[in-house]
């Protein structure tokens, strides 16, 4: 019985972690560029037991063995890099990658982070920065006399210079990166991901070539969380949690029965 209790406890703990992941997804249902997580469960080791009661009687077959598992464990929380819906904002600095790829962001400590959240803006010196103020990599600065900025599908950034002869000038090229295994990226928070051993090294490229997605200016990528799916998952997680708690109370009742055998 004690084993049934620890087995069922592992089930309850797993469902608790499941609910945590679901709750985080639901909390980020409106976060631009957010990628939902899903948990993956697998069973634990098995032991082959002959129930202690099944003895070898004279002329009877040897006892059959039963495989008893030890419960379940959380094996992975996968980030699902399925695309989110396009949300039109009309802001020329709001960029969305249609297809594969991440924007590169230079963090204050010099390291690189990656994001699908393309809500860029200008800082005091007219550098292109994220909402948190981190620089886009490679860095881009909009000239003071530019009246309009536009980003093409292939990532070329051009500005309309003020003056009697309004001219359009290319001032830079956006670079985006892809990973061999994007699901292996670690989350840093702030809509940023960082490279890990599991994700592999980033491959830099230009939007629209080598499998990179194209840039859509004036759009933001919505969160890819689907509320109905998350709610259904939450219901199944709660019921699984209850089932396992039932197993614990049955095991507890049986232990109580044993305790009361000898008064």
């Amino acid at each position, binding site marked *: 019985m004690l*084993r049934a209790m620890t087995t069922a406890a592992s089930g309850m703990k797993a469902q608790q972690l499941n609910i945590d992941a679901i709750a985080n997804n639901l909390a980020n249902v409106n976060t631009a560029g957010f990628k939902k997580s899903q948990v993956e469960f697998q*069973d634990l080791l098995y032991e082959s037991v002959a129930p202690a*009661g099944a003895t070898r009687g004279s002329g009877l077959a040897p006892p059959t063995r039963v495989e008893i598992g030890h419960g379940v464990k959380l*094996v992975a929380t*996968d980030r699902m890099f*399925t695309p989110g819906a396009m949300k039109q904002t009309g802001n020329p600095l709001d960029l969305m990658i249609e297809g594969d790829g991440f924007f590169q962001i230079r963090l204050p400590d010099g390291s690189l982070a990656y994001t699908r959240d393309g809500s860029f803006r200008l800082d005091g010196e007219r550098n292109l920065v994220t909402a948190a103020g981190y620089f886009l990599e490679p860095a881009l600065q909009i000239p003071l006399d530019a009246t309009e900025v536009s980003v093409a599908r292939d990532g070329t950034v051009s500005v309309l210079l003020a003056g009697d002869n309004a001219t359009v000038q290319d001032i830079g090229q956006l670079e985006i990166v892809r990973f061999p295994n994007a699901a292996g990226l670690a989350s840093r928070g702030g809509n940023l991901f960082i490279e890990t051993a599991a994700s592999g*090294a980033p491959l830099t490229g230009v939007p629209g070539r080598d499998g990179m997605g194209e840039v859509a200016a004036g759009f933001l990528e919505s969160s890819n969380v689907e509320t109905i799916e998350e709610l259904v998952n939450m219901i*199944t997680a709660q019921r699984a949690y209850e089932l396992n708690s039932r197993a614990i109370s049955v095991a507890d009742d049986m232990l109580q029965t044993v305790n009361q055998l000898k008064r």
Partner: protein
Amino acid sequence: MLRSLRAAERAMNVHVTRINALANNLANVDAAGFKQVLTHVTERGATVRSVEEPARTLDNEPKRAKGGTAAWSPQRELDLRSAIDLRPGALRETGRQGDLALAGDGFFVVQTPEGERYTRNGRFAVDRDGRLVTASGAAVLGGGGPLEIPGGQFVVQRDGSVVVEGNVLGRLQVVRFSEPSRLEHKGNALLAAPRDQVAEPMPPESVQVVQGSLEASNVDPIRALVDMIAAQRAFEIESRVMQAGDESLEKAVNSLPSTR
């Protein structure tokens, strides 16, 4: 009396083992591709084993066997039978390109340090070296070894062929067994085949791989709960038997007048 105590003890142990197995099924009610273990309690050798005669009669003379049946005690031995339930679970659509489900028969083949293992859990991913791996990092085998998938996007066709940008890179190995009920759980959603079971590759036309879906656990929680309640009540009944045996022993030891 002692015999009834021992019989009750053995029966209680059988019920406890059954509860442990059921608890494992319930814990894995959400694990993709999990195959539940069905258990049921049977009686072994429920035949009259011997005709029981008292060793001496009341006059204290050795009794001659007269060929009549006096008291008989059937030797009732409980046995717990278990079998892996290979019925398919429901298919759940996830939209993830690495999630594969088998809509028909068969198992995916996975390479582990302990040898080849088989699974219905198709939650695969491409690792940093481009190999198709399970959630625990074990390589998924195609016809000629681990499958290598360069780049990000890949399509898995119904017969298990992996296609990248129009080129067929290989075919997932999907196997079947003559006696699949003898497969053993090894944890991590993997099953092992006993030595005499040969994994037979399934012909491409009978393979049905569905990309973007996962097979859910086939645990039937209602059945598991009902079995659990039945096992608990049977356990309680056996505990009553044990109590009755204990009380009789107590009477015999403490209350009978002493013999001369």
